[in-house]
């Protein structure tokens, strides 16, 4: 179980996360939604320990960092590293030595090519494969469906279901509500750095409607498109 208590985050004087209190249990998939800049990525970075913050993030099974697989929104790949070498690097980092990468290549990626030459979707799939190979207990997936083709989306959905079966903790963000309906058990609406609503599966629609009703029409009118 992960317990986030009174998490606050400031960049200088600007408060980007405000009094976040969340609990994530094993075997649950949680979705974090919110507009761009709401603080989703900052929340993930804080949970992973990549950013400092005020408050606490407790994990019942020990050091959270060593059990966590983190998929960033835009995975960064070192230059002149092939896909296979990237996967090996991620496995080495968790002391996993012998892996049959060919067999584990569920997205059929060209693992012998430099990762930097991959398309956006392929990069995302490679990074996801990497965190899956690390035998993690917690998965933080920042927009895992972004830029990924429909077929791979289906695979990711199935992977998430499998992770749930395996009692893993999954926290993800996405702007695509249809995928959230399919995968998540709980949804948390983050607005201006605050969780303003947390709901179970039956009430996802309320958050979707709330997000849609935030004056989109007026904003488009202001563009004065000709």
């Amino acid at each position, binding site marked *: 179980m992960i317990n986030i208590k009174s998490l606050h985050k400031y960049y200088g004087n600007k408060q980007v996360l405000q009094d976040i209190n969340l609990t994530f249990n094993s075997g649950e998939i949680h979705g974090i939604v919110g507009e761009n800049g709401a603080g989703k990525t900052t929340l993930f970075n804080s949970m992973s320990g990549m950013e400092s913050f005020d408050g606490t993030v407790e994990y019942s099974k020990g050091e959270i960092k*060593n059990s966590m697989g983190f998929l960033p929104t835009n995975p960064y790949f*070192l230059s002149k590293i092939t896909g296979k070498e990237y996967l090996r690097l991620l496995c080495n980092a*968790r002391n996993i030595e012998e892996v049959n990468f060919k067999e584990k290549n569920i997205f059929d990626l060209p693992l012998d090519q*430099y990762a930097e030459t991959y398309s956006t979707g392929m990069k995302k799939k490679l990074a996801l494969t990497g965190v899956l190979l690390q035998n993690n207990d917690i998965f933080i997936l920042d927009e895992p469906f972004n830029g990924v083709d429909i077929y791979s989306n289906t695979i990711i959905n199935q992977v998430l279901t499998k992770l749930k079966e395996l009692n893993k903790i999954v926290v993800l963000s996405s702007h695509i509500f249809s995928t959230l309906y399919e995968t998540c058990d709980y949804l948390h609406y983050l607005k201006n750095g605050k969780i303003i609503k947390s709901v179970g599966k039956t009430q996802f629609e309320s958050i979707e409607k709330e997000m849609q009703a935030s004056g989109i029409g007026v904003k488009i009118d202001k563009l004065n498109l000709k």
Partner: protein
Amino acid sequence: MRYYYQLQYKRIHRSFKDFGTEPFIGYPIIVMLFYWLSSVFFDRVVYANYVYVLIGAIFAYSFSNPEHSKFVKQHFSTSGHLKITVLNNLIKVTPFAMFLVCKMYYLETLLICLLAFFISFMKKRSSTSIIIPTPFGKKPAEFIIGFRKTFWLFFLIYSLTFIAVFKGNFNLGVFSLVSVFLVCSSYYMKPDPEFYIWIHAMNAKEFLKYKMLIAFKYSLLLTLPILVVLSIFYLDQMHITLIFLGMGWLYLIMYILIRYAFQNQGLEMLQGIIGVLCLLFPPVMIIAIPYFYTKAIHNLELLLK
């Protein structure tokens, strides 16, 4: 186009600030440094005027970011893109051209400007698809990346070792050994992205030890051909070879420590200066290594618990 150059100017300004200096101090220092280096170059190198033109042209070509060029091409008109590319290359060779004018090499000045113009029409590939095989696949990190970027240097370095044997010049052999460590230390010049540190299930001490062991093993692999050749042909001076090998490892370890001591502070130039200082006065490393170790541990503890 005017705003584009205003932005470039702002970017340079910000780079100075990020480096921790005010632009009005930074600009004169760079100008003086460039003038001094160019003067030394002209004093010491034969046909310096021609080599200087070549260096200027190579600088203009290699100092362009293909992604930046792609951005300009995507967002400016065809003529705007061409103007910017030509102007950027001319700006890059301007310091070289001005120095040539000072030296009264007018023909060479014209030549470097023409080269900058023609370079603008050359296409630079952003990434290559040729996979260069390396023996470092087991622990793919700095050495695999660095080796793929600098593999051609090893042909030169190993050639020097063989020349050292044929010419009976032991010092040249030692120089080739030192060169391997200089090249390897350059693999640690760029800061390690936070994510690639964070993924390790290790504490700060274990992480540094892990990095040092990889550097130790892989640099030994790269120096092995030189060590074998020197031990066969200069066995009586093996102790000197081993001293330089030990110094090389110390130098490499120091560079790893500096990298994490200055993690994400954008101080690559400072790293370089300290590196050169330690190369000129190796005893400095006795103080530098423990200092940077403590600083690196402190920095890494923020990411590795």
